[in-house]
């Protein structure tokens, strides 16, 4: 592998476990199991799935906010999961995170100017207070806020403005990888697209790579060139955007697309009843074989026995025993429209 094509981030076999208490007993919950993907420079990868699918756990494990049980995550050749204290803190300037609820992610007692300058204190300790001030003012203006609002506290801002502040803070150290954990979910419709546009614009300007975690398929389609579909901690499908939205291979991907709210009432009526019944099972007691089989309309006996491996099918990676048969079912492939 030469230097040009080497990915910025290569995750191999990532597993994240949590210890939980069930009726007084300590049990191991597999939140993320054997997840692998690559992210090249300037690319954005969408991670979609229902709540409880382990999307946020991937983000938190990569940023070392929760420990990974096993696996590797090479960021420019260095394994993020092996870094120790000082090395990790130095690298954090390159890896930043945007949270779902911007107001909760800002210190309620710290002025916006200080919050935005916070990463500079840690990663560029040589800067003077005036330089820090200048950098944070410039950054806040870049995300569309005025310098007159610098001394206010977070609660004086609306959700959309607060998310702009959080974006300014995440980007002030010019990171190379930005992880967005549901960055639009807590925002109003009219604000959502402002923030999505801003993120895309900044991504282009700063040559950022992005992990974009969302349950909003429309936003993922807008923001990401590649999409990873996660169910109960396992990768169901990984493919380019066009492939996912035009010809999804996995029954779960199709079900997700079909369940997304239709843009008009005519399309909603044309589509009819939802296909997918039931809900995501508890990660404490995952089904045997394929984890999706309990809700899959195409499950066969083999699915309970044998866990499908993630394998190449055309341009996609799919974990389904019946992916070839289903690919030829045309009425399913067009459900997304």
């Amino acid at each position, binding site marked *: 592998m030469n230097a040009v094509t080497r990915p910025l981030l290569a995750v191999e076999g990532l597993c994240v476990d949590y210890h939980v208490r069930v009726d007084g007993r300590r049990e191991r919950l597999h939140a993320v199991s054997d997840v692998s993907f690559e992210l090249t420079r300037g690319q954005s990868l969408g991670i979609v799935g229902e709540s409880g699918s382990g999307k946020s756990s991937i983000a938190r494990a990569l*940023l070392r*906010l929760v420990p990974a049980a096993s696996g590797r995550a090479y960021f420019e050749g260095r394994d993020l999961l092996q870094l120790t204290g000082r090395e990790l*803190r130095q690298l*954090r*300037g390159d*890896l*930043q*995170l945007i*949270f779902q*609820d911007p107001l*909760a*992610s*800002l*210190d*309620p*007692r*710290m002025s916006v100017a200080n919050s935005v300058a*916070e*990463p500079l*204190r*840690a*990663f560029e300790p040589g800067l003077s207070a005036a330089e820090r001030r200048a950098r944070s003012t410039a950054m806040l203006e870049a995300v569309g806020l005025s310098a007159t609002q610098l001394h206010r506290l977070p609660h004086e801002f609306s959700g959309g403005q607060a998310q702009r502040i*959080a974006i300014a*803070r*995440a980007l002030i150290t010019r990171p190379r990888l930005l992880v967005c954990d549901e960055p639009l979910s807590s925002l109003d419709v009219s604000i959502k697209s402002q923030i999505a546009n801003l993120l895309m614009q900044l991504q282009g300007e700063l040559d950022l790579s992005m992990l974009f975690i969302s349950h909003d398929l429309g936003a993922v389609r807008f923001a990401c060139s590649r999409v990873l579909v996660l169910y109960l901690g396992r990768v169901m499908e990984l493919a380019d955007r066009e492939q996912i939205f035009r010809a999804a291979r996995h029954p779960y991907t199709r079900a997700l697309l079909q369940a997304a709210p239709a843009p008009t009432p005519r399309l909603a009526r044309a589509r009819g009843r939802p296909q997918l019944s039931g809900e995501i099972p508890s990660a404490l007691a995952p089904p045997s074989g394929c984890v999706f089989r309990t809700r899959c309309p195409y499950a066969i006996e083999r699915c309970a026995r044998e866990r499908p491996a993630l394998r190449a099918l055309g341009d996609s990676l799919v974990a389904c025993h019946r992916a070839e048969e289903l690919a030829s079912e045309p009425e399913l492939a067009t459900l997304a429209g």
Partner: protein
Amino acid sequence: MKQTLSRLMRQPMARIAAALLAAIVCAALLVPWLSPYDSYTPDFALLSHAPTLAGGHVLGTDPLGRDLLVRVMWGCRISLAIGVIATLMSVVIGVAWGAIAGYAGGTTDQLMMRVVDVLYSVPFVPLVIVLTVLFGRDLWLMFVAIGAVSWLDIARIVRGQTLSLKQREFIEAARVCGVHGAAMIRRHIVPNLLGIVIVYATLTIPTVILFEALLSFLGMGVQSPMASLGSLVADGASEMQSHPHLLIVPAAFLSGIIYAFNYLGDGLRRALDPRSHD
């Protein structure tokens, strides 16, 4: 902060408490300075004189002929000083101890909190008696003794709050921004604890004052001729039958101060709690 103050001042009881406290503090500072009498010089012509407007001794005199008003004001000064200084000490120790234990977690937390548990179990009054016997009666000993006990409560409260703060997203966000260790505690944890600490400190001051009064009443507090409200009440109690004003006046000031701090603390708690709409 401005908002909290305005919410505080919109509560009538808190307003009365603040006014009362301000009046007592001003009087304690001004009266001994303005009065022609001082608190040490006895006037053997006027022993245990009843309050009168005519003689100049507005609140009468004590059994040694000293002006009671001036002595009570000195007592207020000492009691308030002990209350405030001992509380400040306990806040500094308690916040540092609790925040470090809560933020560090794990074994450090366990060890630090067990120390608190052990200190809690020390019988306090006998300990002070032993200390006074060993080192003699000393105002500084009072500060140390009281401060050493009252920080335990604050440490426990602060640790609990820190544990829940640690779960908040902005702390996680700060970690991603490279903040760690002491900087995290100083910049993010402590400022977010201040509200509850201020409330608790306001409620600790009267406890400390009462505690000092108890020690003085038992004869282990400030040494004569210096006076605190506690020692004045103790002196007054012995003359209760013949000269009730010697008990009533310092007791009234003591109650006034305790009342004011309690209502102020309660008002602050309400003002800081966004859910309560007074």
